[in-house]
């Protein structure tokens, strides 16, 4: 793994793709050239120290020197970030965490994403060899809150699930996952890679254990340093040997290694 680098990126474009959902394109050649799917950036949101901490955000799709951060406005930090405009600079540390390592011998790879959880898996979709079979599930509240541009949504061949039935399957992503798995022929050996709300991840883990399907999860927890120095980002290990650090050991874990059932996930 390459050690974290610091880069001052230049905002190229900032778009509100749906209410409170922002997509910022940032010219950051060093980060763009080394980042791999699953890694994140620790982003300075204020020029001063209020709010004090950086915000961890997945590094989204990369094109040439430009990477994207796609995020929901949740509080003050993401609000400040959404106020960045073309020509502004942005202080980034990255790429942090381990890239997603997709184990061999599985097909299809099922991306199970909810809302903004789609971001890290978009790069994986882009970086995975084209011949690998994949199914891309994305759950949203409604057709009006999709975390992608229309052209991207088309290009990715997504199976949609929506809470209100306004787009694709009417119901949650885990139910749709079950339908997808039930439809696979017996010789298939699927692998699920999931990122999204805690409820979805827990439901997915339970289902995958019942069906004996291996699964990976990308986790979000509050962070201090982002580089493994402060021990703020702990998640409980299922072997009872204390905690893993999401920034250093993750952010992607084998579901079986983490006590997702009791982990505190925002």
């Amino acid at each position, binding site marked *: 793994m390459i*050690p*974290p*680098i*610091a880069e001052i990126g230049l905002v190229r474009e900032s778009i509100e793709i749906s209410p409170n959902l922002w997509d910022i394109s940032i010219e950051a050649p060093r980060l763009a050239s080394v980042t791999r799917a699953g890694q994140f950036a620790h982003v*300075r949101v204020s020029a*001063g*120290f*209020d*709010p*004090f*901490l*950086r915000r961890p955000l997945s590094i989204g799709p990369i094109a040439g020197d430009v990477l994207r951060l796609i995020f929901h406005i949740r509080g003050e930090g993401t609000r400040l970030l959404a106020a960045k405009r073309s020509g502004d600079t942005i202080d980034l*540390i990255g790429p942090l965490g381990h890239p997603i390592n997709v184990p061999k011998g599985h097909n299809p790879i099922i991306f199970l994403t909810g809302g903004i959880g789609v971001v890290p898996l978009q790069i994986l979709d882009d970086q995975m060899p084209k011949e690998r079979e994949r199914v891309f599930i994305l759950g949203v509240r409604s057709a009006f809150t999709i975390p992608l541009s229309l052209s991207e949504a088309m290009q990715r061949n997504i199976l949609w699930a929506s809470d209100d039935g306004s787009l694709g399957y009417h119901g949650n992503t885990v139910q749709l996952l079950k339908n997808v798995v039930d439809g696979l022929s017996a010789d298939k050996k699927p692998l699920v890679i999931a990122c999204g709300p805690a409820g979805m991840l827990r439901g997915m883990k339970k289902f995958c254990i019942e069906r004996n399907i291996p699964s990976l999860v990308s986790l979000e*927890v*509050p*962070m*201090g*340093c*982002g*580089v*493994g*120095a*402060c*021990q*703020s*980002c*702990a*998640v*409980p290990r299922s072997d009872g*040997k*204390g*905690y893993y650090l999401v920034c*250093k050991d993750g952010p992607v874990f084998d579901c079986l290694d983490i006590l997702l059932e009791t*982990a*505190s996930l*925002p």
Partner: protein
Amino acid sequence: MTTDFNVAMSGLNFRTPLLTGSGTFGYGDEFLSLIDYAPFGGIVTKSLSVRPRPGNPPPRICETPGGGVINSIGLANPGVEAFLAEKAGILPVKETKVFLSIFGETVEEFVTVMSRLETLEGISGYELNLSCPNVKQGGISIGGDSSAIAETVRECRNITDKFIAVKLTPHHTQVAPLAEAAAKNGASALTMINTLVGMMIDVETRMPLLGTVTGGYSGLPLKPVALAKVWQASKAVDIPIWASGGIVNGLDCIEFLLAGATGLQLGSVLFADPYSPGRILEEMDDYCRRHGVKSVEELIGALEKP
């Protein structure tokens, strides 16, 4: 930069007064690619205990409006043996002074950890953490009792000739008796202060933001408290004071020097701005030039009376 940043403390020369705050910098390796060691006079590592400590139940960190951070790490560390086996080799002992922070639940535990660490080469000394708010035993409970402080420092002094800083809690109105107990029993410096006990609640869910409900409050809001404690301690004892609490820029450092500090610890600021050490020295240099100050030592305790 034209200012002379060298400071002498209890027989050691530090190339600058800047140090890291224990627990915000790990053992130095994680930040290697981001932080330049050159601006630091020394680093203080994450507190080590006899046995490994897994740490507190998450969430372990939250923010407060106004630039504060509250943590509940619970002194998670690999224990002194694993540290010696895995981490000790990576410390930059040649170029930078290294101080190993020690935590114990009892006086014996402090002594046990220190005697194991005494086997290491190139270490300049220790910081005794007598003030962690996030653990049930040890920490504040030893650090609030001057006879327990006296005994811990005396026993540790018996086994080392190296520098011993003693880190105290802000949770006592009378600083002098605690400071004197450390100074009279062989402390080389006092670190003022560890975090304050603090707490945040999410009113929507009625849940505390930390797994242990309360935690240690650091960042901008801690600075006035730390300044007052540094000033009180510097009046009470003759040994140098290491300031810790809310330092984010050069003028914060000048304030602490004027209040009587000789060492200046950068803590939470390293999370937001790992490049702050270089910036802070430049800001101090700028102040010194504006005020005709040739050496930062001229500023230590140079507070004007109101």
